[in-house]
């Protein structure tokens, strides 16, 4: 299993929790107060509750159901029903490898997360989902003009749009849905980002229309 992009770090502030998926594995991704980031099986070992509904207390993630606290190693640190109890180390979530590089959060569910280098000097653009397959997405990218010009594909996922470059990092969720984490070249100004964000919306609509037509 490759290392997959699951979103932008700027969309996950410290003390926030989100849900993601990599290769069929349901994930909770969260950041401690100290900024540390974790990616776990989205399931509390106690009663199977989705931890993505939980909340961050200090540097622990707490399950919404019974408030059990888990530290960054995934080990249960506190059970509110028994405040005096030191929970056994066997109560532990399944922890996956996660890193943040170039403002992108990367997860590998089968080994150490080692993202491929991003081929351009970049900044975050946005994250979105598209109901399409990779080929359909690429076709849509070439079909949707930007600023009157036709996009040019420089490499897989990398497009030249006028003076700008956009990189679409793909995380296939199943056969027909992809999570996209989009980056833009480091020289882009805020108004460029706004315009290219709208281009992403147009690409998503075009890819999904093709999907329906096919």
């Amino acid at each position, binding site marked *: 299993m490759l290392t997959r992009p699951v979103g932008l770090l700027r969309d996950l502030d410290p003390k926030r929790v989100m849900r993601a998926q990599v290769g069929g594995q349901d994930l909770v991704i969260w950041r401690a107060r100290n900024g540390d980031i974790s990616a776990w099986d989205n399931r509390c070992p106690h009663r199977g509750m989705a931890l993505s509904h939980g909340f961050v207390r200090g540097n622990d993630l707490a399950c919404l*159901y019974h408030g059990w606290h888990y530290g960054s190693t995934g080990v249960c640190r506190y059970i509110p029903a028994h405040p005096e109890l030191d929970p056994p180390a066997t109560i532990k979530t399944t922890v996956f490898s996660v890193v943040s590089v170039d403002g992108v959060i990367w997860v590998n569910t089968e080994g150490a997360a080692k993202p491929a280098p991003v081929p351009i000097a970049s900044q975050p653009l946005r994250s979105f989902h598209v109901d399409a397959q990779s080929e359909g997405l690429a076709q849509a990218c070439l079909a949707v003009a930007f600023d009157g010009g036709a996009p040019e594909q420089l490499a897989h996922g990398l497009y030249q749009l006028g003076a700008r470059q956009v990189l679409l990092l793909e995380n296939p969720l199943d056969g027909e849905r992809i999570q996209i984490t989009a980056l833009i070249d480091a020289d882009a100004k805020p108004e460029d980002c706004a315009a290219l964000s709208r281009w992403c919306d147009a690409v998503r609509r075009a890819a999904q229309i093709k999907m329906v037509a096919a």
Partner: protein
Amino acid sequence: MSRAYALNDWYVVADAQTLARGPRLTRLLDQDVTVSGTPDAPNVVDDAGRAYPTQFKYGHVWTCLGDASRPLFAIPEADEPGRRLVPCGVVRVKCSPLRAVENFLDIAHFPFVHTGILGSEPHTEVAPYKAEIRDGVDEVWATKISFYQPQAAKSAQSGGDTDYQYRVAAPTSAVLYKTCPPKPEAMDVIAIFVQPRSETECDVWPWMALYDDTSDFAGLVQFQQEIFLQDRSILENQRPVKLPLDPKMEIPTRADLTSIAYRRWLKSKGAFYGALTEDA
């Protein structure tokens, strides 16, 4: 899927209010049935026209799809004078019927799911209590439970320790007894009758027998519905959807004695509808 044990239990499929609106097309144990008639003479038939036995008890129509039905359990408190009998409507939940019952038996979630009503931090500790499978009656009972609650009932004016007892009378029916705020010598009765539509979807019919002469009916129902809607946000987000009976799959703690007894009891009876078993 094992319906073998479940087929011979009784299940709620309507209440009087539903009946009054006309026939109810519903599903029980993966089978489509139609409920009609009146509380005095309810009818349950399947699409092939086969009629099933019915009875009207505790404000609801009950039916059984099997040939060798066990008797419907008794709730003696329903006949005690002075109690208000309050059917609370129905809540559809996409979860195992057994997970719905287990959640009903759980107090440790009150401070986190029913915050400010049935529990609140820092009052999270669950003191030791007793849970047992009572062989003579073939029921699970949990007793000697006490828990701090900010607003234990619609009739409660302030927070306080509430005493609880739980009774699992059938795999999908449970009754709780709790301190009655206006009448400290008595206990309020709250039950859930779970209609298993399938192993992963159910209709939950809460029912109460209370000493409360002041709250209006709508207010009582609304209070209970609010609680169950909060529970639904949990129940629809548990994995696996079916209740695992293998103790290795979900790690309990001391506060889960009732849940442990309930799972063991289901396993010993072969009540596997809605359950995940090692050999399933």
